[in-house]
């Protein structure tokens, strides 16, 4: 290869920068031009021209670097390249997505371990409120992995498609950004389904933004082993494990109904306790069926509730248990609530069975002649902002007061569905 001259090299560098092709293709074009310039320059020198002047003249004969690069670009474009670009774009998304997903998974898992250890430390030494790892938190961690995967996939796709199609990254991103963002927006809004709260919705709906941030970049990205990141993650993990050995395991006690003890959770505000003459004949149970919480009330003599009206199953908003060190306290009825956030009808069925035929098993057989079972179900996972709910069957007695008929069941609940379901529920005021 002839020794490159400064003017030629500047020219070739300008052409190379403007060619929107893959590295190997670009290098081949520039090599061909380099040989041409050397040949031309040599011929001019042999004709008696000064070397510097010969180099400049050789460059001049090729015209402007920009013009030549643009002409070469146009000459090499064709529909098959666009097809190949679409294919390489899909491959780039898959490669970037998998790479980003794996890296994201590592980052999120190590961050989760570190945060858990920090949380344990805060709980043990500072008396801070403990944080229970719930399904929504797990969902957010999963979403964070998706976000990182979308960022890397977007980061890979624009330069990959540009190199294959023979267009600049700035042109290609006009397609990759809206296309990918629209697909991810649809996925985030309509397809992803699971536990949600406001932070989870924000993380989920940010998915297209991560893609945009990645696809905006036009420089090629080489996906190799992220050595520095891997070292950082391993060090963080080791530090977390060592710290947890010093701190000790977490001691979170999420108090349930059985551990409430003398603590008054405030059921009294739901309704008055059942009248004394009723309690002997009543037995209630709670079960979950899919997303429903089903309450049943076995009544020894259906005539006991003659004259009662507005029998219903109802759910009241609760507040999460307080789990500060040494101050565990059960979940309670939200003091600001004055009415149930959800009510549903109840129906009578044969004693010991719910309307769908399942056994309620809350009353010993044989059943008295007039025994019957009252059941009702509530869809508990479609109310944004409710993390604890108290559910009971109530009714209005002939004296006009509402009474609790079943035991009050405490349930940790979370919204589950798509982001669209979430927004619909919020707009509907649920």
């Amino acid at each position: 290869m002839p020794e490159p001259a400064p003017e030629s090299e500047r020219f070739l560098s300008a052409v190379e920068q403007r060619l929107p092709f893959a590295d190997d293709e670009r290098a081949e074009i520039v090599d061909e031009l380099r040989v041409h310039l050397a040949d031309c320059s040599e011929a001019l020198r042999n004709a008696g021209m000064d070397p510097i002047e010969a180099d400049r003249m050789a460059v001049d004969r090729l015209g402007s670097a920009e013009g030549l690069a643009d002409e070469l670009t146009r000459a090499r474009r064709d529909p098959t390249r666009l097809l190949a670009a679409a294919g390489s774009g899909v491959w780039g998304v898959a490669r970037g997505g998998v790479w980003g997903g794996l890296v994201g998974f590592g980052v999120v898992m190590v961050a989760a371990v570190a945060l858990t250890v920090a949380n344990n430390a805060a709980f043990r030494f500072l008396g801070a409120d403990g944080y229970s790892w719930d399904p929504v938190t797990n969902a957010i961690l999963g979403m964070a992995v998706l976000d990182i995967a979308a960022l890397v996939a977007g980061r890979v796709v624009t330069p990959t498609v540009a190199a294959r199609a023979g267009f600049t990254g700035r042109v290609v991103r006009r397609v990759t950004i809206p296309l990918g963002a629209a697909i991810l927006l649809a996925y985030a809004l309509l397809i992803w389904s699971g536990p949600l709260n406001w932070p989870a919705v924000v993380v989920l709906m940010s998915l297209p933004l991560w893609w945009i941030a990645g696809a905006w970049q036009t420089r090629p990205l080489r996906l190799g082993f992220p050595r520095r990141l891997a070292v950082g993650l391993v060090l963080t993990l080791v530090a977390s494990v060592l710290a947890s050995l010093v701190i000790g395991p977490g001691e979170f006690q999420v108090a349930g109904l059985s551990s409430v003890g003398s603590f008054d959770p405030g059921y009294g505000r739901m309704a008055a306790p059942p009248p004394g003459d009723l309690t002997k004949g009543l037995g209630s149970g709670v079960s979950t069926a899919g997303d429903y919480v089903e309450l049943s009330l076995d009544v020894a003599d259906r005539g006991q509730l003659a004259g009662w009206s507005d029998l219903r199953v109802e759910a009241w908003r609760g507040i999460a248990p307080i789990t500060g060190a040494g101050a565990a306290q059960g979940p309670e009825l939200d003091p600001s609530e004055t009415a149930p956030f959800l009510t549903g009808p109840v129906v009578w069925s044969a004693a010991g069975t719910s309307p769908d035929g399942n056994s309620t098993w809350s009353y010993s057989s044989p059943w008295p002649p007039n025994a019957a079972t009252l059941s009702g179900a509530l869809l508990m996972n479609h109310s944004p902002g409710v993390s604890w709910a108290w559910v009971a069957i109530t009714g209005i007695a002939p004296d006009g007061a509402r009474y609790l008929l079943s035991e009050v069941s405490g349930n940790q609940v979370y919204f589950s569905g798509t982001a669209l379901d979430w927004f619909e529920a919020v707009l509907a005021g649920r």
Partner: protein
Amino acid sequence: MDRSQLLKGTTALLILGVLKDGELYGYEIAQRIRERSGAFIDPGEGWLYPALHRLEKHGALQASWRDGGLGPRRRYYRITEGGLRTFNAQSAEWEQFARSVRLVTAQPANA
């Protein structure tokens, strides 16, 4: 008359015309055109490489890199069967066009 305008419509014909006699690399093609045209066609080489790459893309040429012994590696172009057919068609068309132009310009002014 602006020769570069004339050149635009005949680049493929010129390139295929010199390559039908054997394979050449870019600089040689430019030189051969210059020599054969008696230095009449010598507008610089900015047009040459885009035209070569376009012809290659359309299948009229095949290109291959070859070591040049003591010299640098060069990209040689060879005309294909399709390129030869294109050359024959364009050449005939050009002859017809040139003949027509001559007929028009040879008419006496008072005819």
